[in-house]
């Protein structure tokens, strides 16, 4: 991660901007939006180690004097799925990428989904973080 940031700095103009955009190290929330409103079903279990390593890498390049942090914000980012099947497919892919099993959460969503009326959407939401780093132009 630190090497990638060094590469990013190398190709940047001396006063250029580097944006670090990624999910904040917070567990995602899963809920269902229906005619009755939004109902939160549960929280996903995730290994957040990589996020902490990424934070550490950013701190390191700032300590090295390559960048200064100018602004940091967090905001919500939703993934919206129309059917249980869509959610199931997405969850399988998520687990295939090395994340812990989400069986218990899937069962709760499968249990709640048929009980809700009207058009339903499954929403996975998590804050994203965006940090603006200014290139200080040192090598």
């Amino acid at each position, binding site marked *: *991660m630190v*090497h*990638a*940031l060094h*590469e*990013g700095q*190398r*190709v*940047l*103009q*001396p006063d*250029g*901007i*580097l*944006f*670090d*955009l*990624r*999910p904040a190290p917070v567990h995602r929330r899963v809920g269902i939006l229906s005619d009755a409103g939004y109902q939160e079903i549960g929280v996903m279990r995730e290994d957040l180690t990589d996020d902490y390593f*990424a934070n550490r*890498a*950013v701190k390191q390049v700032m300590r090295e004097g390559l960048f200064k942090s100018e*602004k940091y*914000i967090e*905001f*919500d*980012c*939703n*993934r*919206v*799925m*129309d*059917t249980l*099947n*869509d959610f199931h*497919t*997405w969850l399988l892919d998520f687990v295939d990428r090395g994340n812990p099993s989400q069986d218990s959460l899937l069962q709760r969503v499968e249990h709640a989904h048929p009980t809700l009326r009207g058009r339903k959407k499954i929403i996975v939401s998590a804050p*994203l973080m*965006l940090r*603006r780093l200014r290139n200080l132009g040192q090598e």
Partner: protein
Amino acid sequence: MTLRIDPERNEVHALKGMADWRGKRVLEIGCGDGRLTRRIANLGAQVDAMDPDRKLITTARKELPARYSERVRFKAGSAQELKFPKETFDIVVFAWSL
């Protein structure tokens, strides 16, 4: 599968609020299928977008609207070794890739 990521476009609104993108030369690292690339191009930037996954790059090229074809280039590659000369870009975006 129907999956919509960030239908509210919060991501691009946040990026727009943090820089002037018009006419800027931008490198997006981790572009995936080009979802965010198209939105950055729409802000008026000239975008080089890369991802290590060649299949996603192929998808990104297919899904790029013709109106952005002069301003966006997709390339398979790793952030560990950027094949660009020194001081090429005004803005570098690590998009879910750090």
